[in-house]
């Protein structure tokens, strides 16, 4: 196979095989996930998907529930479908992002010690794809808490649905917090970092936008870095203002978004008065094999961020 110049400097360490039992269990979960039968008829299911976050978000539940009875309208800002699903708005997001950046820069910063963890509590739901030709299904909106280490080499943990999951080799908070604030350097950097997502086929601009989304959503950044990220986002081609959007907690706000080349739009939502980051939302803008235009593919809402000494602790 490969020519081997002498002995390998580091031969593969022996590891025990995955046991037959665990193989079966892992396979069962995988097969269940991809073959899960839809629980309702196709027509209802699509709306069930889109309404899912609203039924959990107590504030908006009643109002949005009412909308579903009359049927969604593409221009009705209060329904869970994207208000501008037909096409991109064409509105330049630049002025709004500058406003958001300006406000972010003026916030008091929080120092995060090298041995500390950043705690972020959010509500999230993402769509999975249950069947070859069937529609994707959105999880129920649920709580997510993550303890992200400030420093490299420390294991992060997150808790969802009562289960703690460890993430060794996690990208630490400092990887984002130490990003350069020089606009040119940062622009180059976010494209470079965005290459991690290149396999998704969404394109380099989309990947850079996604990287910034990840950097601002689950992290605690110096205000200058946050501001620089939003200013750089304004330079990514195709980033547009979205009039109104709603996060996974039912909070409405101003928003900016970008439609990737596959036909999925990713939106960041900000409080309309304070310009604080509220959450993200993504949805299809054209019919795809696994979902129709307007289908929600992800929704999040950041509820709390703070610094703690160790995993499991909550910020005061």
């Amino acid at each position, binding site marked *: 196979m490969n020519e081997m110049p002498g002995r390998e400097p*580091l031969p*593969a360490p022996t590891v025990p095989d*995955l046991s037959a039992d665990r193989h079966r269990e892992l396979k069962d979960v995988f097969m269940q996930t991809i073959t899960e039968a839809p629980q309702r008829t196709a027509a209802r299911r699509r709306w069930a998907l889109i309404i899912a976050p609203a039924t959990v978000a107590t504030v908006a539940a009643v109002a949005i529930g009412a909308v579903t009875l009359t049927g969604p309208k593409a221009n009705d800002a209060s329904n869970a479908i994207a208000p501008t699903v037909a096409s991109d708005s064409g509105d330049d997001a630049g002025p709004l992002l500058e406003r958001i950046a300006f406000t972010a820069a003026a916030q008091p910063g929080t120092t995060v010690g090298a041995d500390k963890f950043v705690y972020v509590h959010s509500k999230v739901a993402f769509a999975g794809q249950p069947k070859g030709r069937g529609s994707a299904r959105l999880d129920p909106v649920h709580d997510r808490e993550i303890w992200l280490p400030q420093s490299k080499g420390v294991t992060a943990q*997150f808790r969802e649905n009562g289960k703690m999951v460890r993430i060794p080799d996690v990208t630490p908070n400092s990887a984002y917090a130490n990003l350069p604030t020089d606009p040119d350097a940062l622009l180059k950097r976010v494209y470079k970092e965005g290459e991690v997502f290149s396999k998704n086929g969404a394109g380099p601009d989309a990947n850079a936008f996604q990287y910034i989304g990840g950097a601002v959503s689950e992290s605690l950044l110096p205000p200058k870095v946050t501001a620089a990220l939003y200013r750089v986002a304004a330079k990514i081609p195709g980033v547009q203002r979205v009039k109104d959007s709603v996060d996974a907690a039912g909070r409405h706000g101003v928003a900016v978004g970008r439609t990737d080349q596959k036909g999925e739009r990713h939106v960041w939502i900000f409080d309309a008065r304070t310009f604080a980051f509220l959450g993200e939302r993504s949805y299809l803008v054209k019919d795809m094999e696994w979902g129709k235009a307007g289908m929600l593919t992800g929704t999040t809402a950041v509820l709390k961020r703070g610094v703690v000494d160790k995993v499991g602790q909550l910020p005061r």
Partner: protein
Amino acid sequence: MTHTLRARLRAGDPAAFGQVFDDHAGQVHRHAVRATGSWATAEDVVSLTFFEAWRLRENVRPDGDSVLPWLLGIATNVLRNTRRAARRHSAALSRLRIETVPDLADEVTDRMRDADRLTAAVAALKRLRPADREVFMLCVWSGLDYAQAAEALGVPIGTIRSRLSRARARLRDLTEMELAPRRGQVQGGRIKAARSHQEETR
């Protein structure tokens, strides 16, 4: 036969995915254990890899032999960014009972030596640049040839070649340092110093 399998994967045929799981989950798992040094994490990586494979099934090349390179490419991506992948597939992940799975360190004594070696190997790998480490793991530990590694990572064969030779050279340097006369902790410190110097200058 293989063509048919790839076509079925692209079409989202669950039975084809079941077959691929049976054929390759073990190899993906071994790759993940060696990459992370953690038994429990490796199981999550296996699950995430297959969920990602399902999500990205349209990206399977229509022709080619084994789909293992494609899967290991996805696994490499998952290992690079476990957090993002875990976030996307959290509902499915939460169905797994990981608490029943011991970490390697907790296993019985006859495995302790293997566990120690694994820990040492993982530590040595960490000294490599991430891109070099990925190529080394795919080619040397998981046995892909240059073309398969190139397919897995989506880079030219020449890049695989040069990353692999850089990884080997670096590992030889490290081995020599290990063998050099030493006392207690001093040697670890030297390697660490050499590494951080190299990392800062790259």
